[in-house]
């Protein structure tokens, strides 16, 4: 173990720079959101991930955000274990009827101010599972959604850029720009 630790000390980190430009896969309910988060929370964001019926593909890529290449925590973004500690619910999957109540209760357990980010093509619009007896549909059918990050699944880069867009320093300035989505 010592040898490995020593090697890691003398080699450069795997962590990569991230462009803060807005990725093409975002659908924001309103640019005002950005300003609101920046004003209230600065650059710190506590995220509670909720799988409301996904195939687990989105979970794999959300997991990847914590690896050394993306290292999401360097931006002040961290995943928390309880909705009580969360600012943002990151919701994946077409919401299934069997998960609907659990999702609503998780939202209710999250203290305000709170935001909902729907992740993946299923969270955005039910994806390939549309018109099933077992699915309610997009996350927006159950909760007020503030931001959508599309993809099947979205890549960690898309996810990271989407989350950074939420907490960007320039948010307040951008919020007044009517040309933004």
């Amino acid at each position, binding site marked *: 173990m010592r040898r490995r630790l020593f090697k890691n000390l003398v080699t450069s980190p795997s962590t990569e720079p991230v462009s803060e430009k807005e990725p093409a896969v975002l659908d924001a309910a309103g640019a005002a959101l950005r300003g609101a988060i920046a004003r209230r929370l600065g650059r710190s964001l506590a995220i509670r991930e909720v799988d409301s019926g996904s195939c687990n593909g989105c979970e794999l890529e959300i997991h990847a955000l914590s*690896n050394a290449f993306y290292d999401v925590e360097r931006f002040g973004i961290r995943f928390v274990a309880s909705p009580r500690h969360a600012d943002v619910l990151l919701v994946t999957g077409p919401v299934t009827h069997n998960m609907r109540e659990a999702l609503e209760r998780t939202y209710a357990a999250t203290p305000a101010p709170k935001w909902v980010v729907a992740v993946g093509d299923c969270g955005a619009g039910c994806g390939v599972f549309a018109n099933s007896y077992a699915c309610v549909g997009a996350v927006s059918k159950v909760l007020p959604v503030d931001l959508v990050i599309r993809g099947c699944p979205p890549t960690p880069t898309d996810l990271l850029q989407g989350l950074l867009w939420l907490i960007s320093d320039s948010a307040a300035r951008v919020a007044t720009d009517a040309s933004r989505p």
Partner: protein
Amino acid sequence: MLKALFADLLPVASHRGWPRVEADAGVWRGIGEALREGKLDLLGLWGDEAAVHCALYEPATRDMSSASIKVSAGGKVPSLAVFHAPASRLERAIADLFGFEMVGLPDPRPWLDHGRWAVRSPLAERAPGPEPPRYAFLAAEGPSLHQIPVGPVHAGIIEPGHFRFTASGETVVRLEERLGYTHKGVEKLLCGKTIDEAARLAARVSGDSTVAYAFAYARAVETALEFCPPPRALWLRAVMAELERIANHLGDIGAICNDAAFSMMHAECAILREETLRTCAVAFGHRLMMDCIVPGGVTAHLASAGHDAILSLAQHLRQQFPELIELYENTASLQDRTVGTGVVTTMLAAQFAAAGYVGRASGRAFDTRVCRPYPPYDVEPMDMVGRNEGDVDARVWIRMLEIQRSLDWLEAALASLPNGPTHLPVIAGPTVSVEGTALVEGFRGDVLAYVRIGPDLCIERCHLRDPSWFLWPLLEAAIEGNIVADFPLCNKSFNCSYSGHDL
């Protein structure tokens, strides 16, 4: 055993690949008894419009066969779970989806149906019946016992499911799982889809096994249609399957160690996993290789850049991974947590036909690539690894050894990869409905796919069975007598799919 059991029965002509026979009540009972005596393994049990099918494997001869029983006029089917406990949840699911009465089923509680859908028996399109009674968890009574309900929303970034622990102090007396939260009605959605549309759904049954599912589904379709994809496609499918296995095993090894609070291993494995996924993106255009396998072949050709990327990844992993194995082996605090924890006995692994690393860590010598080899494993064979301890440590070791076997295999396969086209369109429909069943080894174990295709090349019935169906019940057994704090460790060492199971 299979031959003797089905000696008087003619295989159904429309079912291609291994035979399917139509059993009467007597033969069905014979199947139940053979399962009880351990002479056969149950690899699947699923409903249809007016029948229930099962897939059987005979370990002694490595034969496979499917058998079906017609549903009686009153919607009744004799239960196999009476003889063979692993059939229980499958029969509960059949009862939920088709509304059949599984006569004699010891546990008649609903399984996938939580009483939240607008329809009852969705695959049979029956009118809503009476509201089912409130779900009753199994009792565990005694002084000083307490219950810990967990989920469906868990603390980590994982899928939803409910665990009901009954504990005496720190020791788990009983764990009962309640699943079905991610049920998306996939089998209903599959009905009527074209074979290509259905492939996209099959690839999204369990995202971590998207290659294995697409592979199994494509093989079932091609078996039914007696269609042979070009040789290069067959090889590329297996290259993807081995990359998927390596990526998932790396993720699991790191996550298991992380659940024993050894985060260094997690960080190191996550780097190797990310490098593997990036290589997949270079080689096949998608990090998880979703939708890369379709009926008729594969969608990616694998250019020389991708070919080289896979080879240099293999070389890189060969260099890096042994150091991590050494780290795992020589960290006493980690070994203290994994060795002897969450034991699955050889007997239970055999009874439940435990798939993948869970079975192979508990002495069950089954790997589809070895026991029922499909192309290209029939030409380029895979080595099977095995352990007998059945604990978390053994399941970690199986994964470590399998990564190395997969690297060996990848290097050999890439050296002998045939040239030529990678896809042939499937355009000729059959004259009558045809059926096919396929078994493919995913990272977690064998994935079973059954399809029945009509003359219009649309799906009449498709069933996809995740290995987790037979692993989830073993997790309940493995945790018994362990401390509550070891549950995440045991759970991760199984890494069952919720979505694949709930479908």
